[in-house]
């Protein structure tokens, strides 16, 4: 974990509303493990004081890239960032994805910017498997070619049927799963909460492993403030708070006590 006061290397539209921000990060870049994130202090975010967490999409010895969608005050304030502008990051943060279990078939499941969190994992895994990407429209299905280039089979689903199977990611995943030996599957999931929950439920029902990247509002990003907690089951049948930023963001589906 390092704090790096650095600069923007590149910033451009990627697809639809999504944008890619590449930052020089000779300190942070080499530390990155797949599934980790960084905390960005957005310059000129007027009168807001908190950093924003972003999954690390790509990382190497010189820098890191994030893939984001402007949705609120912070992400919108990122749009004017130009090459050479100063930024401040803390990274890499969080536990990251574990190693694939021996003999397991890796399955990636993602929605929206979730693809960003999975890319490094897809690259790292020697065994290439299958990726289920869900989105509202074709515009929201990111990086398909990139994952294919890495050797993955990609099955997109869209709410409006504009790409791949029409429906939620489960519409493609469920029929496929029927034909598998469930306990051999190992899922790496990153996406909106309902998707995480849906995959978590299936993992428990069908007895496979599912690593879920949990998305919770954060303040410090390093485990100090206790903002980003979720309920994690304890051995005695109870639960304890676990910090998504430090103990996570990756949790195995069986660990999570879903709220509501």
């Amino acid at each position, binding site marked *: 974990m390092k704090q790096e006061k650095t600069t923007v290397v590149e910033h451009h539209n990627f697809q639809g509303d999504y944008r890619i921000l590449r930052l020089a990060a000779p300190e942070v870049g080499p530390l990155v493990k797949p599934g980790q994130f960084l905390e960005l202090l957005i310059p000129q975010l007027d009168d807001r*004081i908190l950093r924003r967490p972003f999954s690390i999409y790509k990382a190497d010895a010189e820098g890191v890239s994030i893939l984001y969608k402007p949705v609120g005050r912070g992400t919108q304030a990122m749009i004017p960032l130009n090459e050479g502008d100063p930024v401040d990051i803390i990274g890499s943060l969080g536990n990251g994805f574990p190693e694939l279990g021996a003999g397991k078939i890796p399955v990636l499941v993602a929605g929206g910017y979730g693809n960003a969190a999975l890319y490094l994992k897809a690259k790292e895994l020697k065994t290439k498997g299958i990726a289920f990407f869900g989105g509202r429209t074709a515009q929201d299905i990111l990086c398909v070619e990139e994952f294919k280039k890495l050797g993955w089979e990609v099955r997109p689903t869209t709410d409006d049927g504009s790409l791949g199977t029409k429906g939620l990611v489960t519409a493609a995943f469920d029929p496929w799963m029927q034909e598998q030996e469930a306990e051999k599957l190992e899922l790496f999931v990153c996406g909106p909460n309902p998707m995480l929950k849906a995959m978590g439920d299936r993992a428990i029902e069908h007895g496979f492993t599912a690593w879920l990247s949990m998305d919770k509002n954060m*303040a410090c990003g390093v485990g100090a403030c206790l*903002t980003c907690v979720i309920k994690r089951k304890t051995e005695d049948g109870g639960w304890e708070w676990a910090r998504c930023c430090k103990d996570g963001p990756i949790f195995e589906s069986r660990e999570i006590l879903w709220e509501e």
Partner: protein
Amino acid sequence: MSVDLSIKIGSMEMKNPVTVASGTFGYGPEYAELVDLNRLGAITVKGIGPEEHVGNSTPRTFETRGGMLNAIGLPGPGAQGFIDKYVPFLSQYNVPVIVNIWGKSMEDYGKVVEILDAVDTVSAYEINLSCPNVKEGGSAFGTDTDSFSRVIELVRGKTQKPIIPKLAPNVSDIGVFAKAAENSGADAISIMNSYPAMAINIETLEPELANRTGGLSGPPIKPIAIKLVWDAAKATTLPIIGMGGIYEPEDAIEFMIAGATAVAVGTANFTDPSTINRVIDGIETYLSQKGYRSASELVGTVKA
């Protein structure tokens, strides 16, 4: 000319006047990769109760214009858990550790101290009498002079280490509490906790925090904190640890001029963990440029 940055809070010596605000720096390890803990004047840890406590539901924080609300609700491992989980780590450093303590009842405060007092690594107690985010105790003790004094007296009876009541900001006359702290045997006071506050989501009509209300911290409260420190400094001769919105060295210097012997960096840690170093360096530069020989010389020099 070299400046003597060291100050004393009761018998506790700090190599410089800068600590961190409880709850914004975890228990020590969280920022240890980003901040050299040995540089700190003291480490103040997150509030510790007598037993393990779960705290509030989420959302626990919310960003506001210029600041943030929190209603963490004092989750934590409890006094024994703290000893087991964090004291071995903290004892590696050459920095005094201030343990922020809280309780639901008066007895709770006593219990925490009983459990912790034999631990050498614990240098002092900051008594949280002002947490806006727990139903029982907390703030209630901080806004009533009787129970305020009784908690301090009770803790005083259990330890020789410095005790530092943390005053509630939402009172009409903080001087009364500063004086009461002095009379009850406190060694110092700290000012201020986050200010009781609230935000409501206008789409859902629900409060933005699960606890409904929370505490406002960060730059918005600094001018309030400066006044409270100034008011308290007029009422007591106890050293004051000032905090509330310190982001720049200039902020810390302003607190010292107002009457704070030491200062704590809080919410700024979340924004920029290098703040602490910047503040320590900035105080030193200021003092030496202005020809002060020691940090203490600056304390309470406001011309007012």
